[in-house]
């Protein structure tokens, strides 16, 4: 029988300090019984001789000094795992909220996980077709990658994430696929949007959801993504499934982290966020990946809303340093009614080079990708110049690039929420657009591919020109 301590000495924000503790250990989970009999859970953050500093997941309201009973459970936070976990919905600390029975676990796992041995990793190189041209064509997602969506408030990141969850597939294979959805501090409506979308498309039965809403305890958010990721690891590496983890909104997670840090009176780093935020975020993002000799994979799509659309804010900044690229949503494109409003220039997929090309997508993919980027960048630059000086200030080639940039946004980036484009369609749109540009400007494309792919469209364009005349 574990001892119950009534020696709580301090309560401040989400933290309590308990005195005269025997044999507590770092990271251990505790059960806290408030005066009214309600039970909360917490975790040891620091232990100094017989004094334990504990963060309370459900918040400290209702706790007092004399009657609060604290029990140390001698283990870390764990989650029970079994195949029947698929199709279930849990709250932010792992209790079912879908009126179903508790999961009967086949195994228990610590939610903090253990770092994957870099030597055991398998390099992500299998192309995932999302059906979204701006992603497939230019910022290709591969299995085992972590590719966040950098968004802003009011932008349709939820729609895009749901579309990816709906359409993502590895071509020509009927493999086991699952979605783990982690909500941290989002609104009921947004969570509901995902749940309904998953229900409608039949995705719910192959999904596991962990929902911590905006009015749920803040500190619980620290644990929520770790529950999700532990389940994802189980599905991927024990059951051999390909798991897509969507985590939204990382900004709320980081704010919870800051709240604990402030309550502990730690030396703050940039904008008050703790100095260890990089390490903390990495301990989650790095749980994406593949393992040599194992079937499954974990692909992460974290979503974060950049405060004031500022990508140098610590949250997007540190995330960008850990993840393998990012998908940027642009307010300007959104205002022009372009969906998905992906700004391809600052977007990036670091792993694309191994996932594209012959045998994966198509041999011309790499060249066309580089050329589209370069041409669009030049078009945008010229367009900016034109807004300052007027179109007359541009050379005739620059004018072509401006027109290219406009058409690129309207035809390549823009597509319907339910439009699922194959990679061939995406690349062919790219060629069609490039055919506007004089051939000698297509410096990034090998001549053989110009011969093979572009010729067709050049004739088309000529035909159009003739018709116009």
């Amino acid at each position, binding site marked *: 029988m574990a001892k119950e301590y009534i020696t709580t000495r301090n309560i401040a924000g989400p933290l309590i300090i308990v005195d005269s503790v025997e044999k507590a250990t770092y990271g251990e989970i505790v059960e806290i019984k408030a005066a009214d009999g309600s039970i909360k859970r917490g975790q040891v953050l620091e232990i100094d001789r017989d004094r334990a500093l504990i963060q309370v997941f459900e918040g400290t309201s209702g706790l007092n000094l004399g009657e609060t009973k604290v029990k140390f459970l001698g283990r870390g936070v764990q989650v029970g795992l079994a195949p029947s976990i698929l199709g279930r919905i849990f709250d932010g600390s792992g209790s079912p909220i879908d009126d179903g029975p508790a999961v009967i676990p086949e195994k228990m796992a610590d939610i903090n996980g253990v*770092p994957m*041995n870099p030597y055991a990793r398998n*390099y992500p190189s299998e192309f995932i077709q999302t059906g979204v041209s701006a992603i497939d064509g230019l910022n290709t997602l591969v299995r085992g990658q972590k590719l966040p969506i950098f968004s802003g408030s009011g932008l349709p990141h939820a729609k895009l994430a749901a579309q990816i969850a709906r359409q993502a597939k590895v071509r020509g294979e009927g493999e086991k696929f699952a979605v783990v959805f982690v909500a941290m501090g989002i609104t009921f409506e947004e969570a509901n949007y995902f749940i309904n979308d998953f229900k409608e498309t039949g995705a719910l039965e192959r999904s596991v959801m962990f929902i911590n809403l905006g009015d749920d305890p803040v500190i619980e958010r620290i644990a929520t993504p770790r529950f999700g990721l532990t389940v994802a690891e189980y599905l991927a*590496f024990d059951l051999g499934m390909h798991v897509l983890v969507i985590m939204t909104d990382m900004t709320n997670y980081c704010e919870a982290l800051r709240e604990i840090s402030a309550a502990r009176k730690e030396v703050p780093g940039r904008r008050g966020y703790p100095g260890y935020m990089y390490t903390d975020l990495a301990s989650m993002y790095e749980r994406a990946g593949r393992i040599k000799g194992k079937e499954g994979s974990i692909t992460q799509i974290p979503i974060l809303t950049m405060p004031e659309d500022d990508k140098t804010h610590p949250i997007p900044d540190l995330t*960008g340093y850990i993840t393998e690229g990012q998908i940027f949503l642009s307010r300007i494109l959104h205002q022009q009614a372009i969906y998905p409003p992906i700004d391809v220039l600052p977007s990036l997929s670091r792993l694309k080079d191994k996932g594209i090309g012959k045998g994966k997508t198509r041999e011309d993919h790499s060249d066309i990708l580089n050329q589209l980027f370069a041409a669009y960048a030049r078009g945008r630059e010229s367009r900016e110049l034109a807004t300052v000086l007027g179109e007359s200030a541009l050379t005739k080639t620059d004018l072509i690039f401006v027109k290219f940039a406009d058409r690129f946004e309207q035809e390549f980036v823009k597509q319907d929420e339910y439009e699922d484009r194959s990679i061939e369609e995406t690349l062919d749109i790219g060629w069609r657009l490039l055919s506007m540009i004089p051939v000698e400007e297509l410096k990034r494309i090998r001549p053989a591919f110009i011969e093979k792919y572009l010729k067709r469209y050049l004739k088309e364009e000529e035909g159009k020109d003739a018709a116009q005349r």
Partner: protein
Amino acid sequence: MKENIGKVVKVSGPLVVAEDIPNAKMYEMVYVSDKKLFGEIIEIKGNNASIQVYEDTSGVGPGDPVYSTGMPLSVELGPGLIGSIYDGVQRPLDVLKEKYGDFIVRGSYEPALSRKKKWHFVPLTKKGSNVVSGDPVGYVQETVAIKHYILIPIGLEGEIDFIADEGDYTVEDIVAKVKTNGGEREVRMYQKWPVRIGRPYAKRLPPNEPLITGQRVIDAFFPIAKGGTACVPGPFGSGKTVIQHQLSKWSDADIIIFIGCGERGNEMTDVLMEFPELTDPRTGRPLMERTILIANTSNMPVAAREASVFTGITMGEYFRDMGYTVALMADSTSRWAEAMREMSGRLEEMPGEEGYPAYLASRISSFYERAGRVIVLGNGKKESALSVIGAVSPPGGDLSDPVVQATLRTVRVFWSLDAQLAYARHFPSIHWLRSYSLYADSLKDFYTSRLGKEWAEMRKEFMKILRREAELQEMVRLVGIDALSPSDRLIMEVARSIREDFLQQNAFMEEDTYTSLEKQKRMMRLIHLFYVYAQDALKRGVSLDKIVDLPVRVDISRSKLIPEDNLEKFDEIEKKLKESFEALVSEVQNG
């Protein structure tokens, strides 16, 4: 063994405070709790010692034992290093995977060098000869290209009393005995060295030869010397890691040490899977046969990240001491600095700028100063060099970041990565106006003797054109391109050609990923010739539009794709270039 045991009193993340450790010394290695978690003493206050623990401390609590070792944190140096992958405290990750599985289990331990593997030892000295520290007693052919010399350990000198015959030995076998003033000492195939202390050398020399990287913007514009230091700061997505990978693939060093310090796991995997398949352009052997990897990814314990750069550079010094040219890449030193900040915060030290400890700058410079071109210890008086290239990841790409500033004060080459260039997919995104190399002068002689005077002149001319382009762009922004004179517009065109046809280099394209100095020179000459001819043609009344539309320009832009073994192709293009301009000029004169 009771007397070696202290007791844990406090645990706060990776920081553990213990009391009653007998004879606790600064930077001594200890094992914490019965799980034998590996740590290092970083502060002593009275009876209490603060320990940074290199593994996750969950489950450790007051009362747990702490075992002292009396040894500072050291690395093992000997045959078996090359081709290995270690974590930040030199645990062999490949062996750990075999033994413990796909995840890193706490308290797992394996020696860095295999104790069972036998190496073929060839003696190089004989009984009775006098040796000093750093002299080789023999060697092991570790890979086809690398003779791993077995050196007399630092601090030992005397007469060889025993030397093993040629044959197969393990690293623990005694291969020599030395009679010294202090009695007879044994020499094994491996030795240990504390990571925080630089290995001594006989004399430091100024650098005089470039580290040839095959990256055009680096070799031609901002070269780094063998034995030099460089830093690559840039925001995320600007291509730091690709540059580091390119340098470790193509640099003409004998040994490459790549430290993945707090970075992505998948990137290390990329190196691990790619390097064994790539061939070293100089030896024709797999690149992995000259590479040592240190992987302490961002999710691995933060304290081991702090140690990883020292672990790496100590190995670098060891190979330098054998006479090899070593290049060390650290990606990224910002994560290393952050690890220092985290430990400093937990020690409740008074913070300096942005929460970094006040000793940040001195730690950074003590790391970079271990680079250099030296004459090594030993009677051979061999010359060798250790170059260090560190990536820096400043928050938001802001160069006023304390880590960037402290690094810039100590390194001699600055490759400034630019986000705008990266967005336009101009890679490597090294900004030509903001970067610099302080070695340009000391390397001038090398370049002149190898490539002729032309090289330096073209380089100067190109820099001038690029600077002028920046000014002209300002003007265009205000008044439009039409306001420029034809000769200024020509400069804009040539600058664009320099940027797109020369500086830009595609790391993922087989023909373009490495360019020899000779080919670089030929490429530069094409653009330069175009400029010279075009100026002349303008003077003779040829319109700029005609010059700009010359089909030969496509050949210039495609000259990157000319294979290294077919450089005669450049002669053809030069000829075509000349004829094209002659045709233009005669057209004007005749019509």
